[in-house]
């Protein structure tokens, strides 16, 4: 049934130029994800995983095809509307944490709420709750440089879901962590996925991470070559 899918992609193509070379990163991808599902996207380096994630989240434009997120076609929106949509409905977790080094943990977490016009006091309240949920209440006023890798990634996760988005995009969320911390982070992501029924699209090289997902999609040369429901 169509209404089960929060993400629907048909014939998605993405090409870009690197110098004089035209690179076809996505060569006609068809993909769909259900609400509350955790999907792992795997594949060798350069196969188009991150490009797919960027196109789906509206960070990047598409060359051809259709992307529908919760019934909305992002590529038809203006940049402002798309950005607004991202702020209200999406969260991001990146491999290198991508926190603003000049902001404290709580300030980093409240930023997406502030741009979504949530009042500063409510943003602060919700950010502190999110940090408490990832076990970092005591680190709220510390800057990223003062935190360990695992703690930083927890802050990123808190930032991603504090605004209660419907979809969370995670690009190699454990790529920079040791195995023990990586496991803890995946535990956290899985817990949040189950608790909040948010859709998680996780790009990863790690089989351990992928094994925690509901579904594994494998890519090669800009195409989905395998789609396994676990």
């Amino acid at each position, binding site marked *: 049934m169509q209404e089960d899918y929060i993400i629907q992609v048909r014939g998605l193509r993405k090409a870009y130029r690197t110098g004089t070379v035209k690179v076809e990163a996505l060569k006609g991808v068809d993909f769909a994800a259900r609400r509350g599902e955790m999907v792992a996207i795997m594949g060798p380096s350069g196969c188009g995983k*991150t*490009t797919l994630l*960027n196109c789906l*989240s509206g*960070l*990047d434009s598409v060359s051809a095809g259709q992307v529908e997120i919760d019934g909305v076609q992002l590529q038809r929106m203006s*940049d*402002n509307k798309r*950005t*607004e949509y*991202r*702020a*209200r409905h999406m*969260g*991001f977790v*990146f*491999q*290198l944490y*991508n*926190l*603003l*080094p*000049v*902001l404290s943990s709580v*300030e980093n977490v409240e*930023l*997406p709420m*502030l*741009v*979504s*016009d949530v*009042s*500063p006091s409510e943003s602060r309240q919700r950010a502190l709750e999110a940090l408490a949920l990832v076990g970092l209440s005591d680190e709220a006023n510390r800057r990223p*440089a003062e935190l360990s890798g695992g703690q930083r990634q927890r802050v990123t996760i808190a*930032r991603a879901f504090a605004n209660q988005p419907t979809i969370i995009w995670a690009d190699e969320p454990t790529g920079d962590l040791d195995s023990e911390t990586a496991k803890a982070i995946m535990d956290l992501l899985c817990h949040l996925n189950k608790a909040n029924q948010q859709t998680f699209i996780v790009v990863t090289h790690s089989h351990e991470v992928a094994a925690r997902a509901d579904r594994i999609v494998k890519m090669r040369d800009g195409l989905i070559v395998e789609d396994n429901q676990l």
Partner: protein
Amino acid sequence: MTEFFFVPMNLIALVALIAFAVVMGWLLSVALRNRIIFKLGVRNPRRRPAQTALIVFGLMLSTLVITSALGVGDTLAYTLKSMAVRDLGHTDEGISAATLNDDGKLTTPRFDYSRFERLRAQLEGYNKIDGLAPAITGRSLVVNLTARQNEPGIQLFAPDPDHLSGFGLMKNQQGQSVSLSDLGPDEVYLDRRAADRLDAHPGDDLLLSTVGNSLAVRLKSIVKGTSAGANSVVLMPLSRAQEFLQWGDQINAIYVSNKGGPLEGVEHSDEVTARLEDLLAGTGLEVDTIKQDRLRSAGLAGNAIATIFAFLGVFSIAAGVLLIFLIFAMLSAARKPEIGMARAVGMKRRQLVHMFLFEGTAYDLCAALVGVLLGMAVSVATASIIVGVLASAWPDIAFDLVYHFETSSMILAFVVGTLVTFITISLSSWKLSQLNIVRAIRDIPEPPLTRVGYQRPLVAISLLVLGLLLLLASLAIERASLLYLGFSLGITSVALLLRWLGLRERLVFSLAGIALVIWSLFFVSSLESVLGDMSLGIEVFFFSGLMMVLGSVWIVVYNLNLLLLVFAAVLGRIRGIVPALTTAVAHASSSRLGTGLTIAMFALVVFILTFMSVTIGASAPLFEDADLPSGGYDIVGIVPTSRPIEDISSVMGNATVLNTRDILAVGSLSTLSSLTSFHRVRQSGVASTKWKKYPVLGADDVFLDTNTFEFTTTAQGYESAADVWLAIRENPGYAVITADAVPSRSLSSMSRADSALLLEGPYRDDEVMSPVELDLQGGNMTLTIIGVIEPMNLNRGIYTSQNTLEQGLSLPVIPTTYLFKVADGVDAEATAHAIESEFFAYGMEARSIDEILEEESEIYFAISSLLQGFVALGLVVGIAALGVISVRAVIERRHEIGVLRAIGFKQRTVQLSFLLESSIVALLGIFIGVVLALLLSYQVVEFMKTEAEGLEFHIPWAQTLATAAAVWGASLLMTYLPSREASKIDPAEALRYE
């Protein structure tokens, strides 16, 4: 410029040149030994031309400021010198009888032609003189009957045409040589300036008029190259002038031309003067080194102008140095990964420093060259404006602006500019070489220093020693600025030592900042009690400005988070602005160095601009209160000595145009000699025995009764100004003097010409003075100075009674200046016109004091605006710094912008964040600058009131707000383009290249 902050310029130039040669020689030798490193260093400027242009622009500002200060001084000095040479031609010295005859009695300054012949015979065979011309010279009223124009101040110059060889050739407008011998019996020449003033053309009928004599003549030609020593000259042969003046065979001057041309001759001036003085000893004739004096005065004037510009430029130079440091800090940050890689593959620290030095020096040399060229352009514009203002103020003087740059000045500016930059580059290079290789490759910020190295205590102890030396020096040479600097350095060194001992950085520097600000304000507010006998120069205000800015920036930078809370609280109420404000505030407070340096740049320049606005504005009332400089009179009327008014009451009694009921009083001042208002005076009982030229004015009883001049100091026993004036009236020989000839204990004046009169003993800021005795040349006359008139006097000079002059000198004195006091409600300007009409027959020029003051205030404010414009050049530095920071920030934060865009920052929010960040920095700098300037200028105005009563402190709100708005606007404009570029960054692309 002869000295800068007490250090002789020659020494600065010598040290700078040696340092420059050493640095360049060392760099060359390193380059020859390490050609690869050299090539690696110098390729960068070529690889990134846009960045190179930006860096060169930033680096050249200090050199530009130095060059323009020196260039303006050079041009003005050269202009005044060439005007002297133009007016004097081949004339180097003048011989006159002054006011002494053979018997040692004062008389009219004429002497027999035979004196000249005797001297000529005595100089036979003397090869340092190539011309000796007897002449009559003096002021004359000239009326152009054809054009119906008259001018009272035309110089009559009548040399003997038979003795003009050696004085060059006079030429007419067609460029043909002309001679006085060519003139017919009723013909004269005029020089260009006199012809302009009289609107005269060849063939016009003129009337020359002096005391009791008139002569109708015709203008034959307009000439140049008169060697008369003045402009506005009417020329005729000596014999004709003797006839006209009924002087028989007498003359009043001998002109001397030294061997060589108009410029070279002056080199022999000392020798020739000594020789002439030998020959003239006991004859009553005196030698004036006219050209040498004028050239020296021109040099001093140029030096004074250059010094003022250099002083004002100090703030811009300081801001420029900070910009250089910032540019290289940014450059180092941008190169970190590249340099980390270089280190990883085997480049040594030393080689890294060399490479960076080569690159920096390439920028440095280009920047210094561009700075010199643009500085020359700025000084051309500045000098043109100054001369334009002066020319409109003194229409009688023909200003011929000649642009001139001394090679030594330009080399000095280039060398000093290069060295200032080089020192900063060296520090940056050394700092860069200390980086951690892995952190550099991964472009991870260096962690904050947890351990303080040996450098800090070393610097602290050096500063402490320097401070102590300055304190000792201040006691030895009694210079207040050294005391101030010594103590300020002490505060700074203690802060560094406390930090070294482990106290928290924030606490230490916040307290040191507060201490510096409080110490500076205390020092300036308690000058009189602090100083004692120390002298105070203008530099103390500059030093205190610099130190207060340093202190404030420390306070602000170490407490930025608290200050920024205020910004956040105020602006945070605007909902849409909150996310941008959060990131802007966070970035501004995270980069202490960049933010601190940029705040300091803005603060320095806004400080000096506001300080100037307040102090200039404070002096405005001086131009509004006509009573102060005029002694309570409303109109001044001047008649030429050739047309004295014998009985002004009778002229007034028969007035037809003037309503005499409008006039309450008419006082008069007489000049001593018929040819000049200056006289030679000498202070008794002091080491110097040199006669100095100074105006001596004889006041009539009405003036002594009715003037309202006050005194800065008087001799014991006088309770009021009226007592002093009464004493002058009743006691022959008593006199007072204007404040320009009396030193101040607190304010040291700029260097003066040797010939300027400056009394020894009294100080104008003391309450009581001991009477000073002055000899008037003429032998039998001593004046006792019993008071010093307050500054801001329109007529400087020694004021005594006309009776004193008449009785003491056995000479009739001639009133030439009449001062009219009008009734309340009477229009002074209209009355001045009526007076001119009434006294037309006497050639009186009458002007209302208000009109004169208005003209003077226009000049004052025009020059002040120009100086402010020059200072505002420094703002370019601050604004450029914001541009540099913004451009670099966009590059450095590319990835971060990607993240922000991903989590929901719209394009305009990203842009707003950048604009807010630069606004915070600019506004903090502006705020610090304005507040400190107001605090300091208040103290300065209060202090200066002792020198010039009437000064009023008020805040020039309109100008201050306009400056602040302009600076902020410019900083927004400078950040706009980089911020727009930042907002256009594609988030996917920015995130892709992590």
